[in-house]
């Protein structure tokens, strides 16, 4: 199973900035292995975020997002103590969800 994400969510005023690091190869599909065969693309393709269980953001990513991806976005109306959950799903069907509390 994939390693856990690191999620930091910091409230400031009436919103919270969320910074996420995900552990993923993000193989581009452009590289070749030692024998000259193309290494197939393997990447996170769907990302979703929720605040206290309510979905607030979805995104789609291609294989050109960097390895061990970073994501930053801002949730309106989030305050300290709220729960932010992030889920990703890759093109092999692997998925991972982690949660953090807004500070």
């Amino acid at each position: 199973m994939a390693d856990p994400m690191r999620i930091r969510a910091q409230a400031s005023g009436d919103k919270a900035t969320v910074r996420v690091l995900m552990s993923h190869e993000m193989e581009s599909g452009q590289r070749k292995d030692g024998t000259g065969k193309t290494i197939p693309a393997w990447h996170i393709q769907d990302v979703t975020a929720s605040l206290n269980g309510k979905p607030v953001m979805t995104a789609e990513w291609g294989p050109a997002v960097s390895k061990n991806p970073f994501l930053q976005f801002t949730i309106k109306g989030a305050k300290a103590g709220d729960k932010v959950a992030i889920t990703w799903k890759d093109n092999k069907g692997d998925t991972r969800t982690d949660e953090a509390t807004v500070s």
Partner: protein
Amino acid sequence: MQTRRETLKHSAAVAGLLASTGLFPQYAQAFDKAAFDAKTVADAVKAMGGGAPAESKDVTITGPDIAENGAVVPLAVSTTLPNVKRVLLLVEKNPNALIAMFNVSPEVEANFATRAKMGQSSDVYAVAITNDGKALFAKKEVKVTLGGCGG
């Protein structure tokens, strides 16, 4: 601030919860393969439901002038436009131009940052697609340098 240990402990429970309810069914989406396979900025925007892109000062692209390494190029897109449905980040000279698409909801700001791989120096684009299908963009050049000992 939540500790790392708590994150680990919570995540298992949350994962179980999500598995039982399905992954946000109301936001269920098919990955837009056509858009991510598109070779050009215009084709990718079109596949994402936008019209012919027009430059706009209401869209902002943030990125470095020079990237020390093309494997990790920090890019951000933001817009002050109302009625934006989704925003895109694109690299013109990548084999496939589209890097990432973010759906904008009333709960989040239209302001997202991530990091992209770039094979060579290129213009990078931020595109905002409005609810009525208009595509507005900002672009900037990012030079990618060859670093290190080259080995």
